[in-house]
């Protein structure tokens, strides 16, 4: 009980809520970094996935390459980028963290987008073509809506991973909730480390919640039941065992 009382005490200390190392600033910094990373990864990974899925060429190679890339530890990319003079600790460590975490977020989004496009029934695609739809129209009105549950699953997986992993950005001197965890671990201050970890878990929970709602909104109505059923599986099968 003593430990949790200390944690409660830490959270109710007003000094911990103000300034550049205050909870609101650190929370916001982590959210900002995560959002930048996920948006970039959607643009790059999602764009490539749509292109490969639509044309159906070279997709398997890209997906396998993306999955192989997942084995690269994030801490390796972070530290490697952070010691390059061209990047180093620019923008208070934001640049290196942004690049490293984007590399982490692309594979699940790319893979799920590609798989989502590929699982569209060939008959449905043929029917759309037979009705005279152009390639672009098939993509917009047929393939994209049917791929939505998969794409969203990829975005959810990537977002949770990014929120979780952006704590590591603190190691290359970006100030976010990871700063609390890492400095707590360094100084053997379990209360600070635990409080930081708690805040990260809260953020991960919030992001999951927001994305679940968003998924529901953007999923076409007839696909909703199926999407809900595969929700849990999506978190883990976002990494297909290829």
């Amino acid at each position: 009980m003593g430990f949790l009382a200390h944690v409660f005490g830490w959270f109710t200390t007003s000094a911990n809520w103000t300034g550049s190392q205050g909870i609101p600033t650190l929370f916001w910094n982590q959210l900002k970094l995560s959002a930048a990373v996920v948006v970039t990864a959607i643009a790059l990974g999602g764009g490539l996935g749509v292109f490969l899925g639509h044309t159906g060429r070279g997709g398997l190679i890209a997906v396998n390459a993306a999955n192989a890339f997942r084995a690269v530890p994030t801490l390796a990319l972070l530290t490697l980028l952070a010691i390059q003079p061209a990047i180093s600790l620019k923008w208070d460590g934001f640049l290196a963290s942004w690049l490293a975490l984007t590399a982490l977020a692309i594979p699940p989004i790319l893979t799920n987008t590609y798989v989502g496009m590929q699982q569209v029934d060939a008959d449905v695609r043929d029917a759309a073509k037979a009705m005279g739809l152009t390639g672009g129209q098939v993509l917009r009105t047929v393939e994209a809506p049917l791929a939505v549950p998969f794409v969203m699953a990829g975005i959810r997986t990537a977002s949770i991973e990014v929120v979780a992993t952006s704590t590591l950005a603190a190691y290359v001197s970006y100030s976010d909730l990871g700063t609390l965890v890492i400095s707590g671990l360094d100084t053997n201050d379990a209360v600070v480390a635990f409080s930081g970890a708690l805040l990260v878990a809260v953020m991960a929970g919030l992001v999951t919640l927001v994305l679940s709602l968003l998924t529901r909104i953007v999923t076409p109505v007839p696909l909703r039941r199926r999407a809900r059923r595969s929700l849990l599986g999506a978190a883990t099968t976002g990494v297909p065992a290829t």
Partner: protein
Amino acid sequence: MLLGAGPFIRWSYITGNWSQIQGELLQHIVLSLIAVAIGTVISIPLAVLAWRYRLVRTPVFGFASTLYIIPSLALFAILGPITGFVPPGSYTTAEFALVGYTLLILIWNTVAGLDAVPSDAREAATALGYSETAALIRVDLPLALPYIFAGLRVATATVIGLVTVTVLIGLGGLGQQFTYGFNIAYNTPIIVGLVLSVALAAVADLLLVGAERLLVPWGRSRRRALAGR
């Protein structure tokens, strides 16, 4: 890009520090093996319970998903006070967190595998007079093996990556090369750690594929279908 932090790779670093690197590689393997082994031992019975009793399913998945979304670094910090925060380099703290990450992946895949057992096979087992337990051990679980192996492969790759983060609690395996390279702004150690941990993941994956081939000789055509998803 790679200017000023030493050459991309300097071979003399590797030869000069080989015993150190070897020790870290060994620690990496030990940490990963323990995590996947304990994770499997915990997950399979839980998955069987969740599969057989609907009531158990929700709490089991809820618990495993919660562990899964908590950031690894945060989990180390949260578990620290419980498992003995003070001594840095505590295997217990590291393993608690690493095992926690394998649970959702392994439970989910095992349940999916058991769900996918054809009802014909189960009916045939019942008709042959198998008890529920015997059918589970001799029919259901073997038929779920391709899914269990898919889960093991993902869990193993995840754990090998996560072990590097334990460097922040005084372990880390090859992750020690990353912090070392960062601290002295030197590329080679980071590249060495990166290449070796990716290689370790690849070797582990190959071993699992080999083991699956031995245990699931009938699963070859089905495996192809699984991999395509």
